[in-house]
């Protein structure tokens, strides 16, 4: 196992305002790191720093191997622009090779082959000629995942990949990501969905501007923080999480923050249901029209 990414006591922020500090973790190839944290905890800032879009305020992010050469394959959250974008799946997956093509105006044979290979790998080969905006949410995420693999085949960063998907599509996407991980791809997943933890090997939990936990998933699930997080999340969103039995007896030492967390989780749940409904409506409309 070789080290791919190392954050050494990193502080992040904008224009002198610190958003998160004391981030210190290592990622080795083949790891599956899940970054947890509430909204506003500095997750998205950390993403930008890992991708090299913003500089760190102090500390250092060391990249080695492919992460250094071609960066990290990125699966961003969907933007409004993409919902009605007229582009075929093939065009989008090929655009993952954009950095490799440099100043060459067109994609080379190898790059096209790489795109085909990644479409095959994610089971979207038969969709190649289809229009992106007509696909289901789960299919769209596969397309973007294939594109990310074209950019960097050995390390991926996924930003809330299951947001807005129905439970079946969520489960399928998690399985798919896990199988990528099994084939040797390092995964960094940012999520506040508890289902994400199941497949992870490591957990990084950030909250209120600092690192609360980093370590193996088993240790996290056993830790007080992990257990309370898993309980609030799973009871609020009504999901079964693989948590140990004794978790129920964990005393909540800070009831206020617990309630706050519960409220936040409820809010997030409502939001997720809302977006889900909106997207389903959108997709239905598409099906009717098709």
């Amino acid at each position: 196992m070789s080290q791919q990414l190392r954050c050494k006591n990193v502080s992040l922020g904008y224009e002198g305002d610190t958003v998160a500090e004391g981030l210190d973790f290592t990622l080795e190839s083949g790891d599956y790191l899940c970054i947890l944290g509430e909204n506003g905890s500095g997750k998205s800032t950390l993403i930008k720093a890992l991708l090299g879009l913003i500089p760190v305020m102090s500390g250092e992010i060391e990249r080695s191997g492919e992460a250094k050469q071609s960066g990290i394959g990125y699966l961003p959250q969907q933007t409004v622009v993409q919902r009605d974008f007229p582009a075929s799946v093939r065009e989008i997956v090929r655009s993952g090779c954009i950095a490799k093509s440099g100043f060459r105006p067109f994609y080379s044979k190898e790059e096209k082959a790489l795109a085909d290979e990644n479409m095959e790998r994610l089971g979207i080969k038969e969709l190649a000629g289809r229009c992106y905006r007509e696909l289901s949410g789960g299919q769209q995420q596969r397309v973007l995942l294939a594109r990310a693999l074209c950019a960097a085949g050995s390390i991926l960063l996924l930003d809330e990949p299951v947001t807005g998907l129905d439970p079946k599509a969520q489960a399928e996407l998690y399985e798919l990501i896990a199988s990528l991980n099994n084939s040797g791809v390092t995964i960094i997943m940012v999520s506040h969905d508890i289902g994400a933890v199941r497949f992870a090997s490591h957990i990084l939990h950030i909250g209120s501007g600092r690192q609360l936990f980093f370590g193996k998933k088993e240790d996290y699930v056993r830790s007080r923080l992990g257990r309370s997080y898993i309980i609030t999340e799973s009871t609020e969103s009504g999901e079964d999480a693989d948590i140990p039995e004794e978790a129920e007896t964990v005393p909540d030492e800070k009831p206020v923050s617990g309630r706050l967390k519960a409220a936040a989780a409820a809010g997030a749940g409502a939001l997720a249901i809302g977006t889900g409904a909106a997207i389903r409506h959108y997709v239905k409309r598409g099906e009717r029209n098709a």
Partner: protein
Amino acid sequence: MLDKLAYYFSFPLVRHAMIVGLLIALCSSLLGVSLVLKRFSFIGDGLSHVAFGAMSAATVVSVTLKSAASGNNAVAKWITEVIDKTNSMVIILPVTLIAAILLLRTGQNTKIKGDAAIAMISVGSLAIGYMLVNMFSASANVAGDVCSTLFGSTSILTLTVGEVWLCAVLALIVIAVFVLFYNKIFAVTFDENFTRAAGVRAGAYNLLIAIVTALIIVLAMNLVGSLLISALIIFPALSAMRVFKSFRAVIICSAAVSVVCAGAGLIASLLFSTPVGSTIVTADMIVFFMFCIVSKFLRRA
């Protein structure tokens, strides 16, 4: 009718207008798709108003130069007029380029939100442009001048040979840049964050899009006048997006639609002596509605 057309086309001016018109239509449609999808439709509009202001300023500069330098005989007047017509493009181009870059930057910094910045710059330059023309214009027919700048009523038919060449070269540059950077423009339009994360300098390509947009606008002012430029940019793109499903097909279709509409509009305007710009835009609109109907049927089927 054909006789009439043949008669018109025996004039080199008309042939030039046709060539330049079709080239301008082609390149204005290319970036339309990107601008519509990036929610930049109004940047074209704002920039065209800036170009109007710049054109007025150019007129004023040349008028003051003229009154300082020359006498009153008709030949001298005609010569200076020809000179400042080609010169005006030299002034309009850099001003519009700078405005394009500024608009794009404000869009990123968002101290003043993008659309507000565009509205501010566009109405501001419109007002100043009109004021300048009114205060300093040498011509007797100020309203006519303004009308022809805003709606381009006949300016495509009054281009000098120098302007024809300038327009043709600029149009070819736009087309070449678009073809060379096609993949990059696609990537930046579809997903700026991803492209940036992959290590491509997305900012530079956004700048490129802004610069090319400015070029297109300066060109298109000759064809349809500054108020109608947005129509030339967005209608073909919107029409194509109704029916086609891949980026490349949309681009090719919108270029075809734009060229066909410009050709049809130019010929119609010659035959029925209607204003060139509004005839072309009307043709674009008709095609748009046709495509809307077609897409309805395609979806049902």
